[in-house]
């Protein structure tokens, strides 16, 4: 195909190689999956659906692991056909869109601080100190991160779980032990002065 004879709208590709190129270009540039009807439009409706299916199969074969064209795979999804990046490249692509590092809410930080400084504590302890109910999601998030775990139950009615910080927590904060945390004297003295 020659680029120079483009303007005519009714131009038709001469051979199946060019047809496959047109299909590939369409599939690589389409934002959405292309249906078979969409793809027939590429050829002004002058292609048999059976031919189209055959070309799609061939195109699929051309994009294979170990082939010259290998980074994408041609797949069929509910609304049609699309190329998609092979799974092995996805972890690299994800680096382009790192989620902005999240921050813990104030409630989560205070809950964690209470567990750090008053462990082992129950949810009741935390609620008493903070004066508000503990959001179960916060406890779950801290447990899922393996920063806190349950080390026992308090021997009171309901036998509430006792929470404590884990070794992972110390590792993640680069501490050898809780004793490495800066002592709080400075603050408490200051605070007492404020109260006087």
């Amino acid at each position, binding site marked *: 195909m020659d680029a120079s004879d483009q303007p005519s709208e009714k131009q038709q590709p001469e051979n199946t190689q060019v047809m496959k190129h047109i299909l590939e270009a369409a599939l*690589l*540039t*389409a*934002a959405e*999956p292309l249906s078979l009807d969409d793809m027939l439009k590429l050829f002004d409706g002058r292609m048999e659906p059976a031919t189209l299916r055959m070309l799609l199969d061939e195109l699929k074969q051309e994009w294979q692991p170990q082939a010259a064209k290998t980074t994408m795979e041609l797949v069929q999804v509910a609304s049609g056909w*699309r*190329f*998609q*990046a092979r*799974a092995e*490249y*996805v*972890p690299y*692509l*994800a*680096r382009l*869109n*790192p*989620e902005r*590092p*999240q*921050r*813990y809410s*104030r409630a989560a*930080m*205070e809950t*964690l*601080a*209470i567990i*750090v*400084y008053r*462990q*082992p504590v129950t949810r009741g302890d935390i609620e008493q*100190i*903070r*004066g508000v109910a503990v959001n179960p999601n916060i406890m779950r998030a801290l447990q899922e*991160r393996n920063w806190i775990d349950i*080390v*026992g*139950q*308090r*021997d*009171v009615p309901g036998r509430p779980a*006792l929470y*404590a*910080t884990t070794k992972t927590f110390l590792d993640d*904060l680069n501490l050898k*032990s*809780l*004793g490495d*945390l*800066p*002592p*709080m*004297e400075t*603050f*408490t003295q200051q*605070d*007492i002065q404020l*109260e006087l």
Partner: protein
Amino acid sequence: MIVPASSARIHGETLAELPQDLYIPPDALEVYLEAFEGPLDLLLYLIRRNNLNILDIPMAELTQQYMAYVENMRAQKLELAADYLLMSAMLIEIKSRMLLPKPADIEQEEDPRAELVRRLMEYEAIKLAAQRLDEMPQVGQEIMVARVWYEQIAETQPPQISLEDLMAAWQAVLKRASHFTHHKISREELSVREHMSQILRTLKQHGMLEFSALFDVANDGLSKLVVCFLAILELAREGLLLMTQQAACSPIYLQINQSE
């Protein structure tokens, strides 16, 4: 002014001076007007049409043409943009200034046409630049960009916290819970608290343990042994573990307090 629709020469001789291709039936004037982007565009059209082979445009004639055109618009009761009237005023002003005899002492005054010419030429250049821009291939029109789907798994990073964050949170807790404000948290106490958790973990794993099993006398220094002992006492005080001894001097056993 009522203009006969059949008349080809609406304003008599004034319109007769308009170039042939400018003549339009009055009822098509509105459509025609839309073809102009404003007074500069109209003026430029008049100039360039008159000026195909000659360089110089007679100012008086140009003004007359323009005025005729604007008058025509007005006669059609078209909503005449103020821009057109402003341009009319400007042309009349230039014309009148040029007709006035120049006093000898201000001969250096700039030609009143110069500014108009500068604007016309600048507008003309922009007009051509706009056409050129419009002809350029654009993404989505003549340029199709690769846009292949991929499974977007953002690299999730759990929140990072610093020691400062942690202490700030604890201070905030203390400030609000006034019964804690005088509570002094020392390194030792923190170590005790940490050991309390560890001992609970150990007991949870082993059930009952002999007292001495909680101490690693060979490896732990004295201070650590003391901390461990304090932790056991604190756990007992808080009712978190049970200490049992069958007889005096017999081994002391520790277990998590699970009495109902």
